[in-house]
């Protein structure tokens, strides 16, 4: 019966089918829309707003949202919250994306080598992964952040170093099962080098889970960055990030709650959207019920 189901579609049918499945996942589409809007706003928004994010207007301190042109109000120094929010978004999203790229690369490299080589190399690599996982990541994060000079690049590295293990485990499991497939044996029969088989033959077949894991890592990285910045070890003022905006807001929770609510909402929207996209991709790329 399975043979009946195999259809002779146009080339690259898996793309169109994957797309169809993704677009039928409404929450994932919502996530894509939200992230696109958020990114566009962060890129172009600061130029369109009447106030610079660093402009201090002490006469307008603690203006609530919708005061004059301060759409989202002002902070204790009279800076425009909307401008700061979007500038902070640039930092936070950039750090999160870069951290995702870095951690996905490290995780994929470790996972592919450990999964394909197996034996003592695989065991050593995966035990390293276990070692990293056995540290409470927040403490590792804070210890690193306290010891190193916190610049955006350094925060990126710190976040990446504490979040690559999940990707490594997913990739390792995937590669270990792909390694037994006959096309890998065929690659060896043709005399291809180990690196060629690992990265040119096996890796493209493991892209689905990697993409899903990468998307979820962005969400995780946004949270981690907010976390360390909130605790004062991350992005340092005056450079705004969503996390350090929250930090600045905590003593005014009673008098000026919007200072906490607005960056908090930005973080929540970004993280939730990425999680939705990740779920959608997971469903769309899961080809286990198809014939590959």
């Amino acid at each position: 019966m399975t043979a009946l189901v195999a259809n002779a579609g146009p080339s690259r049918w898996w793309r169109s089918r994957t797309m169809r499945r993704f677009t039928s996942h409404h929450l994932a589409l919502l996530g894509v829309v939200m992230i696109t809007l958020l990114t566009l706003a962060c890129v172009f928004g600061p130029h369109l707003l009447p106030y610079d994010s660093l402009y201090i207007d002490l006469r307008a301190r603690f203006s609530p949202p919708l005061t004059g042109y301060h759409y989202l109000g002002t902070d204790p120094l009279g800076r425009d919250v909307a401008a700061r929010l979007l500038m902070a978004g640039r930092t936070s999203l950039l750090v999160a994306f870069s951290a995702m790229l870095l951690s996905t690369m490290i995780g994929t490299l470790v996972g592919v080598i450990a999964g394909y080589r197996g034996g003592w190399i695989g065991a050593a690599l995966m035990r390293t992964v276990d070692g990293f996982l056995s540290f409470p990541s927040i403490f590792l994060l804070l210890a690193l952040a306290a010891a190193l000079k916190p610049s955006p690049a350094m925060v990126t590295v710190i976040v990446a170093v504490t979040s690559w293990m999940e990707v490594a485990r997913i990739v390792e499991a995937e590669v270990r099962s792909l390694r037994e497939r006959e096309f890998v044996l065929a690659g060896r029969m043709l005399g291809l080098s180990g690196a060629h088989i690992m990265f040119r033959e096996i890796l493209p077949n493991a892209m689905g889970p990697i993409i899903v894991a990468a998307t979820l890592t962005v969400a995780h990285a946004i949270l981690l960055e907010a976390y360390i910045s909130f605790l004062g070890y991350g992005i340092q003022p005056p450079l705004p990030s969503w996390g350090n905006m929250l930090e600045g807001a905590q003593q005014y929770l009673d008098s000026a709650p919007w200072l906490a609510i607005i960056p908090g909402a930005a973080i929540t929207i970004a993280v939730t959207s990425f999680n939705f996209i990740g779920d959608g991709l997971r469903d769309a790329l899961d080809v286990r019920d198809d014939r590959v």
Partner: protein
Amino acid sequence: MVASIKPVAPHDVALSVRDLTVNLPKGMERAHAVENISFDLKRGQILCVIGESGSGKSVTANAIMGLLPKVIHVSSGAIHLDGTNIVDMPQDKLRSLRGRVVSMIFQDPLSALNPLMTVGAQIDEVMAAHGVGTPKSRRGRAIELLTEVGLPDPELMYHQYPFRLSGGQRQRVMIAMALALEPTILIADEPTTALDVTTQAQILELIREIQRRKGMSVMFITHDFGVVAEIADSVVVMEKGHIVEQGSAQQVLKSPGHPYTRRLIAAVPHLTGEDRVPLETADKDPILKVEGLMKTYRSGSSLFSAQRVVPAVNEVSFDLAPGRTLGVVGESGSGKSSLGRLLIKLLDSDGGGILFEGRDIAKLSEAEFRPLRPRVQMIFQDPFASLNPRSTIGHILTVGPVAHGTPGAQAREEAKALLTHVGLDAGAFDRFPHEFSGGQRQRIGIARALMFKPKLLIADEAVSALDVSIQAQILQLLDQIQRETGVSMIFITHDLRVASQICDEIAVMQKGRIVERGPPSQIFLDPQSAYTRELVAAIPGEQPGTTRPVAANG
């Protein structure tokens, strides 16, 4: 013919299918899984439904069981089970029929049994689900059933988990489950396809014997005309969702009317007792000489538990002349696939020597052997798994030669020429594996192996996953290639009939050892070892020495 008007099926018909049409969802290669099919299963008979993959035979069986997937449904027609129409019957009524009136045996006994339940509990469950008997009487009945299907030590078997049983034993358990409620109709969907030939013979014998003893009606789905010749009373031949021919087994096998049936019967590989005309080659020195080759699998850590040591290849020696084909036959677990992988060094041997063109390659490291890899190539078993789904055919063919230093443009030229040579369009070059059928993919696999113009080809079950008509074409292609290029071949297969078609010499393997080696005439007509005799006797539809021809050319 309007079937629903027909009051009750005649008394001697157990199952009657009338004008059954089953729709496929949109976007499939055809609109109907089966269209307008009608047939009858008479009481106390075995009806074989035969067809190649995609012919709709499994869909028919699932429709009768009411087990079609949600996206596929019966659009018209009637199915009368013991006189009751079950099309559009509510699920709960249908469920009470299943198991009681009609029961099914599946192809893969491993995935059809629950790995976490004992054999006894699973048989018990069938009866409990229909509210039959008390726990005590059910237990007694289960043991009785296990005895009936010929399992050794039924009392002990009752408490075993499926993983402890062999494939044949698992299929016996499935049969016991199917028989638990004494159904009038038994549907068997390729029940022996996943089994070894000797086990297949036993299971066929068991089904036939039970059918006779209980006067059951059996609908037996298969793709193998050999099996049909063994057990069928009547036959239904299906092609692409249509019944092209039906009639008594005698009539269909002896004088098939439809061209498709004739083609199928002709494509069934037959044992030939005749030896192949060997290819004349100038060079008489063996291209491959294997001496005392050993491979042992070890599993389980010696630290925590006793190591399990399984000798997969044990003291195997043979030699192969240029331009000849050596068949390696054996049942699963005989070590024939391990042997193939040792020869091409996809596995490392534990002892012995492999002299390829006079040089011992057994002890070479991977790096030392890499320059020699182009000379020894392999054709893999599974045409679906052996091609990288994310690579184009062009990439699959050229990646090897390019890695060994052939310029890209030249490799592409050669690949296109070779595609035409193996019977594909050169336009296949830019397409992906999923766009091809099983047989076409296997041609791509062959083209890949030929890109290097190898001296030795190892074909590991290269035609086992294919339909018989495709199988015959691929065998022909391999034969033609050998005659053109003078390549030597090692042809690994579990199917003696296939081996007899293409091999100059056959080595029979059992438990890692070669028990007999000789030309096909000796192996099939005058087997020297008891095991070979057993294997030859178990081939369905053919009994050398008795007069029971399968078809006109058999």
